[in-house]
C-alpha cells in the first residue's frame, strides 16, 4: 500500500508479513491521525521502501517468516541512512516483547493487538527526523 506522500505529514512505515494486518493498521492510522502510513509486507519490501520513502517511524513485526526481527531492525536502520527513524517493535509473543524493550534500538515495544490510543500517544512523541 503506497499512499501519496504528503510533504507536511510525518511518515510511519508498518511492516508485517500478514497483509491484512498491514492494510488494517495503515487504514486506521490514515483515518485517525495526520501521519502518512506506508505498508510493507515483509523484511525485503520494508528495507527497499525504507531508503525510498525515508519514514520518521517504523512499526516492525518481530516474527516475520523465519526472519529475526532484531536483524531486520538493524538492516532498516542502515537502509534509512542518517535519519534513524524511531523503531517500534510489534509482536504477539510477550517474551519477545520483553526482549525488544530491553534492546536500545527500539523506542518502544508493543504487544499485539496494538492499542490505538497507546499507539497514537507513542507516535505523538516521535520527533521529526528532519
Amino acid at each position, binding site marked *: 500500500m503506497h499512499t501519496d506522500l504528503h510533504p507536511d505529514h510525518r511518515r510511519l512505515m508498518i511492516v508485517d508479513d500478514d497483509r491484512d494486518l498491514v492494510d488494517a*493498521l495503515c487504514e486506521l492510522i490514515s*483515518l485517525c491521525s495526520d501521519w502518512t502510513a506506508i505498508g510493507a509486507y515483509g523484511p525485503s519490501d520494508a528495507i527497499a521502501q525504507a531508503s525510498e520513502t525515508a519514514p520518521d517511524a517504523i512499526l516492525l513485526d518481530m516474527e516475520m517468516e*523465519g526472519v*529475526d526481527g532484531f536483524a531486520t531492525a538493524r538492516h532498516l536502520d542502515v537502509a534509512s541512512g542518517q535519519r534513524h527513524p524511531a523503531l517500534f517493535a510489534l509482536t504477539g509473543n510477550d517474551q519477545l516483547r520483553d526482549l525488544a524493550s530491553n534492546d536500545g534500538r527500539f523506542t518502544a515495544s508493543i504487544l499485539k493487538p496494538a492499542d490505538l490510543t497507546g499507539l497514537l500517544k507513542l507516535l505523538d512523541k516521535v520527533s521529526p527526523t528532519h
Partner: protein
Amino acid sequence: MGLSEFITRESGKIMSEFESFAKQQLPAAADMDVAALRDHARQVLDAIALDMRQPQSSFQQREKSLGKAPRAGSGESTPAEIHGGLRAAAGFDVNQTVAEYRALRASVIRLWMQSAPTLGRAEVIELTRFNEAMDEALAASILHFAAEAARMRNLFLGVLSHELRTPLSTIMASGESLLICAKAGKVMPEAAERTLRGARRIQSLLDDLLDYVRSGLGEGMRVTAGPDDMGQICVRVAGELRASHPGRTIDVQTAGDTSCVCDGQRVAQSISNLLGNALRHGARDAPVTVKVDGSSEDIINVSVHNSGSPIPDDTRETLFEPLVRGAGAVHGGYNLGLGLYVVREIASAHGGSVDVQSDDKTGTVFNVRLPRDGSAAAASAFPGMRMN
C-alpha cells in the same frame, strides 16, 4: 567375566539387542532410524560401565539409593541427561523414555546371563551396582525430559499466542476503522472482509488446537465415514475461501469418478487448511489450483498447488510435525504447524497419506491420497503423539 567388563566388550551386541527390543516396544521408536535410537543409549551404557568400576563406600551406596548422589561435574550434562532432553524433543512421552531404560537393562542382563557367568558374591555386588547406576541414569534422564518438555510447552504457547494475536490485531484495527467510518456515514467493505478473514483464521487455529490437544490425551481423531463426493467437498471449500479472499483465484478441476466414503467434515477441514496455507504463502498474483483425481479405482487423489517461493529443504522434513516435536525455533519460529499436522492425521485416520513437493519451477503441491472405500477409516486413531 565381570558385568562391567562384559558391557564394555559386548556393547555392539547389547546395542543391537536393545534396538530390536525398542523397535517392537516403542511406537515412536518405530519411525526413528537406527542411528537416532542408538545415539545416546550407547553413551548412557558406557557411562554406567565406567561408574560401576569406581570404588564405592557403603555410605556412597546408601546415598545413591536415596537419590542423593553428588552430580558429576557441575557444568556438563551427563549422557543420561542429554538423552532425556532429546527424547522430549523427538516427541517421546515419558512412558516411552522409561521403556528405553527397561529395554537397555533387560538386554544387558539377558546377554550377560547367556554368557553363563559364575555367580558369586562379587557378581551379585556388580549386578547391584549396575542396577543402581541404571536407576540413577533413569532419574537424571527423566528430570531433563521434564525440563525440556516444559521449555517446549513455553515455546508452543509463545507461538500460539503470536498466531492468535496477529488476526486479533487485524480484527481490532478494522473494527476501529469501521466505527470511525460508520460515524462519518462511509462504508468500508474491505475492512469488513478483513475482519471476517481474521475471525475465521482464529476459528481454524482453535479447531486445529482442539484436535491436537485431544490427540495428546489419547482420544484419537474420531472420523465418521459415510458416502460423499470429494469433488463436491473441494468445490464447497473453495467457495468458502473465495468468499473470504476476494481478488484471489482458486481453480477446482475434477477428473473421473470422485465419489468416495469418508468423513466429509474432516476432509473439508483438511482441504481448507491446505487451501488456507496456499493462499497465505503462495504468490498473490497466481491462482491456487485444486485437482481431484478419481480415475483410479481404489484411491482418490487431491492435490493443492500454489506458485511462489518453495518451502526450504530443511523445514520440509518437519513440516507435518507440530512445533513441540522440535522444529528449529529461533525468534522467527513462525508456524505452529498445527494445520498440517491435522491434515496428516485426518489422512491417516482414513488410511491415507499426504506428501509435499516444492521447488523453484513449479511452486508447492500438497498431495492427499485417500482410499475410496473408506474401510480403513473406522480402525484408525492418532499415532503416539503426546503433549506432556
